[in-house]
């Protein structure tokens, strides 16, 4: 269905993006079904249907010229900030594992940050397209907006307790800033600011600090205070339990894996070894069951998707399209890096979703938005070059 709509509305769009997205979604659905419970797979299936509808709707709505979005950039900016801080509102906030990333509306659990991320990219693309010449001159007064974004990122980090989200949003900002201004010094300065700020905020928030300790020394040789027990425990049996057991699982997979459905994800009693494996830790289950061969293939698929995205950015003729396509593609790569890198102990672990694969409605919907956006840009670029 998505394909039919795509053929009609954006006939000249990149032909690879949608199949790749579909393949990733299929891998995710399969693994979610395998990890169970069946209701999770069913829900995810419904979300995929909604995602496809959103995809089709976006294409139909913006098939003539998506660049109208540029006009509403401040609306997007405000929306982005609103969505990022939504999980802090009392009444709908729903902290998970100490991080404020979720809201709950009745039976619905939602991560507004996923959509906020897209709104932020639209805003940044529009804003930077307009201000890029001014910024590139590097006058001190133009650093204002940069400092504002930095402050927002710090605030997000402080408020949500989630280093991963802050890293993701700020990383997108840095990438777009670099594309717009071509000034690596800006990026370096901004990165330095982020590190200093993150260090300070990290010191002030025990949750972030704990995550960093878990990353550096997941195995403790002596007992340390444990947040869920009155008794001290070894860190690998407490705070870093998920990380460590997930690594054991990945290692158990070896080169060729255990085979789909044959990995060890539950204890003999039937409880999950790594809780909530179908969201944040789905990569670990895939790496165990499909082995290095399957995991590397999956990551190469992400890489191919990202490279196609950047090719669209290169092919686009106007600055807004280029920035938008690059922002969407880079956010996709960075999000994959933050979650999988966290699982693999490359960086501190934070709970965000693996695009298209993880269980979660907000993630699926926002990723279909992302594909729709890239295809719209691609269609326009190709139409202009053939015209």
């Amino acid at each position: 269905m998505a394909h039919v709509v795509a053929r009609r509305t954006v006939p000249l769009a990149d032909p690879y993006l949608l199949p790749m997205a579909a393949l990733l979604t299929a891998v995710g659905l399969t693994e979610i079904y395998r990890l169970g419970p069946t209701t999770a797979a069913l829900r995810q299936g419904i979300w995929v249907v909604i995602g496809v509808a959103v995809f089709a709707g976006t294409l139909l709505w913006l098939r003539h010229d998506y660049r109208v979005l540029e006009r509403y950039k401040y609306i997007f900016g405000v929306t982005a900030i609103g969505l990022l801080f939504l999980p802090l509102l009392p009444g709908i906030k729903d902290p998970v594992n100490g991080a404020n990333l979720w809201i709950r509306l009745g039976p619905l659990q939602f991560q507004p940050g996923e959509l906020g991320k897209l709104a932020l990219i639209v805003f940044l693309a529009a804003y930077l397209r307009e201000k890029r010449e001014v910024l590139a001159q590097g006058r001190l007064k133009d650093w204002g907006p940069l400092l504002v974004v930095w402050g927002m990122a710090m605030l997000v980090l402080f408020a949500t307790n989630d280093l991963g989200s802050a890293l993701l949003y700020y990383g997108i900002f840095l990438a777009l800033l670099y594309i717009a201004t071509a000034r690596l010094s800006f990026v370096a300065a901004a990165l330095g600011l982020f590190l200093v700020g993150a260090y300070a905020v990290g010191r002030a928030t025990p949750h972030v600090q704990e995550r960093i300790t878990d990353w550096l020394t997941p195995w403790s040789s002596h007992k340390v205070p444990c947040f869920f027990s009155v008794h001290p425990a070894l860190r690998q049996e407490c705070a870093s339990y998920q990380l460590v057991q997930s690594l054991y699982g990945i290692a158990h997979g070896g080169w060729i894996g255990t085979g789909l459905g044959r990995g060890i994800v539950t204890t003999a009693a039937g409880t999950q070894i790594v809780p909530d494996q179908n969201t944040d830790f789905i990569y670990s289950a895939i790496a165990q069951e499909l082995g290095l061969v399957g995991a590397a293939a999956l990551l190469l698929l992400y890489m191919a998707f990202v490279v196609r995205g950047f090719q669209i950015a290169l092919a686009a003729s106007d600055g807004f399209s280029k920035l938008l396509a690059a922002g969407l593609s880079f956010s996709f790569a960075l999000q994959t890096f933050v979650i999988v890198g966290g699982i693999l102990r490359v960086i501190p672990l934070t709970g965000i979703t693996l695009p298209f694969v993880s269980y979660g409605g907000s993630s699926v919907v926002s990723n279909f938005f992302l594909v729709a956006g890239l295809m719209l840009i691609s269609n326009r670029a190709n139409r202009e070059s053939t015209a």
Partner: protein
Amino acid sequence: MNTQLRHLAVFASILIAVLIGATTYWQSWAGGELANRQGNAIQAIAQLQIDRGTIYAANGTRLAWSVPHKKGGLTTYSRRYTTNGAFAQVVTGLDSSLTDYLTGTNTNLTNSFTQEIDRLGGTTVHGDNVKLTLRPSTQTLAERLLAGRCGAVVALNPQTGAVYALASSPTFNPNLLLQPHGGAKIGKIKGTCGSGFAEGDRATQGLYPPGSTFKLVTASAALDSGAFTPSSGFYDPGYCVEYGTKVLNASSPDGGGSEVFGNITLAQGLEHSINSVFCKIGIQLGAGKILSYAKRYGFYAPPPLDTPANTRSPSGLYHHGRLFNPTDPTTQVDPGRLGFGQEHMLVTPLQMALVASTIAERGREPRPYLVQKVTAPDGSVVSSTAPSTIGHPISAKTAGELNQMMQSVVTGGTAAGVGFPSSLNVAGKTGTAELGLNQPIYDSWFTCFAPANNPQVAIAVIVEKQYQGFGASFAAPIAKAILENLLHS
């Protein structure tokens, strides 16, 4: 703008390439190290998914096996043990020490490839099966004879080292180990010796004062060093003078005070287990000489066996519960008391059985073993134990002389009243270890081999803390029953 876009595309690709690299690291280099970590829940389950091999007795009786459980799509296996408590300590010990065989991980390159393919195909890994040298009728008999008391029996073939029986009492139902709180239940088992410690294997782990069985080691040193012959003359006044004080002979089993034998030979000294003779030998040889012969027999190191290393104790002098290896035996050890098996000498029944085996084998000490054969699930032989030798602690001549003297113990000495049939042609040595208690409660020892002219069986028996527990009264009858079981079957 396009230059920056290309840079960023390369950077994004590098980010994902880093992830591929990190995955490779965890799934290849780090894998083995992680698999062996404590608390690896995945490996714990993986072990449950392996169909561990069966442990069989020499006659094919199943001693330990795996039972499958199907739950969801997952087949796990749990362990079952024979409820015959006679095998409890030795089989649970082997189940852990032989785990590489039982889980089939002890493989070469060819079948590790097959295993990887099997794993991909979802085939259950079947471990190798193990056949032991233990004979159920002998093992069960030993346990029955020990029942209600604390003690141990070791019986082996001195020619090959194949262990026929390795019994320890009190014992327990090993299936309890797999049940919740089962370990605590086993911990509460009390023998008549006070602390039960049923889980410990007394045959290989238990440390006992050897009493007069140690005279075999002293006599080995005396004869093998050439300082004495079996006909060397002694005068026994009923005591031995050490450091100016009298050390009395043991009191007679018939009651009354310590025995006095007068003019006798070394051979008669062993036959009647006369302390003063061995006290004098000890003083003359020096403690260092006796200890060096003890070490030749394998004291001061855990004897080799297929059971876990932590269930095998080294024999030797002990001081405050720790093995004490004197740097200067002449000043640190009382040689007279050492000569007749006191002076904090502690031995395991297995070690004493090896001393008897060495004398039986004309000075060659066999390497004891429990695993006869390991076979793969398809029936092919993975490994099979070839009899081998630990060493040659004493000369054939010394062994021959000791053999004669031990025969006299049975025909006319301390074990004459046990009633060994002359057809068995038994050579043995009693031991009655004083425990320093105010009552005549002793550890009763007997070690022997038979037939003396062509030994087929060597035995060590200990029965702990018996009232008037002379070696001939409690341990020797058990040895007799075991010999009859093994030689008449």
